[in-house]
């Protein structure tokens, strides 16, 4: 029983971060795509766009961070 629980814990942690990283990955890809296109069309605004891009990436990444929190909790605390 305890072995089974251990197994499920590792499986759950892996699944949590693995599945949780899909959405933010797509999101960050879209953000950077939009930013690079905007920079290509309007190179003078590149600096401002880059700042906003990084901030946007940070917001998308926060979702992956929540998945990481769940995985760490499963591994080290639960």
């Amino acid at each position, binding site marked *: 029983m305890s072995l089974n629980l251990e197994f499920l814990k590792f499986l759950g942690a892996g699944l949590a971060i693995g599945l949780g990283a899909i959405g933010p990955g797509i999101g960050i890809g879209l953000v950077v795509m939009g930013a690079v296109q905007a920079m290509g069309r309007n190179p003078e605004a590149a*600096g*401002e766009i880059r*700042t*906003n891009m*990084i*901030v*946007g990436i*940070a*917001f998308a*990444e*926060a979702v992956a*961070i*929540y998945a*990481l*929190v769940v995985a*760490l909790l499963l591994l*080290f605390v639960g």
Partner: protein
Amino acid sequence: MGSRKKTILISVVILILMLLSALIIKIPLPEITMVPEVVFRVGGLPIVNSFIAVLIGDFFIFLVVWLGTKRMSLIPQGAQNFVEMIVAGAYGFAEDVAGKENARKYFPLVMSIFLFVLVSNWMELLPGVDTIGVIHKISEGHGYAVSSFLGVQNLVAAPGHYQLAAFARTPSTDLNLTIGLALISVIYTQVAGVRTLGFGYFKRFFDFSSPLNFFVGLLEIISETAKIISFSFRLFGNLFAGTVLLFVMTFLIPLFLVLPFYGLEVFVGFIQAFIFAVLTLIFLVLAVSHHGDESSESSESVPGELADS
């Protein structure tokens, strides 16, 4: 064609060295824990290894700034030039993001956060951090054997009952530090909002004018709380994953493989410090600007839509 042959030769030699090192040199994997180890106690107060690293980092920042401001002259030279370059560049950037008035008010806090987080992050690149410490016996879990070399004890990659408690640990991989920074950032945001807007600041959280506004206020409260979690775990998660990455890569192949990852970590450390500081600044600007439709003219340069969700 000579240079090309040379490049190929060097690559082959490096590859062979990597393979040989993986076969011959066996190094123990450092213990991966979320909890920092207690190095010593001062009258019952535990001094953990991440705190020692924080002190080292603070000392480094003070040293650089002291050298830069020791003999100030109108025409900057040497260290003063360096410090002025960093501060002036960052101040210009803050003015771009926050506008003149807000940048002048909040730049000191934001720049302090940036420098502190940057030094904390880059500490993981220093040799000796996480690797020099006290070898202690463990009762359970995975341990290694101990050997002695020139009077210095070290772990060897053989099963045993010993683990290393390092003197210094990358400060950002300690959740206490990142949560502390997140609390400073979020609480100061509320303080700045109240200071600028008075108690009208709380209208964005408790708005009873219509059911919809009340619901929006609830969402604002939730997002304010979630900021603490995302601030702290973003920094912690990135840096913790970074140190584990460096550990495991060195463990797999001791020579050369880890070098590109060191480059990556320099980049990640800078970006995370930058994000922490810029997000703090943006949230501050959002907090002190008037809410909703009565936006003032100074909020023109604020990327407000990003942080609204």
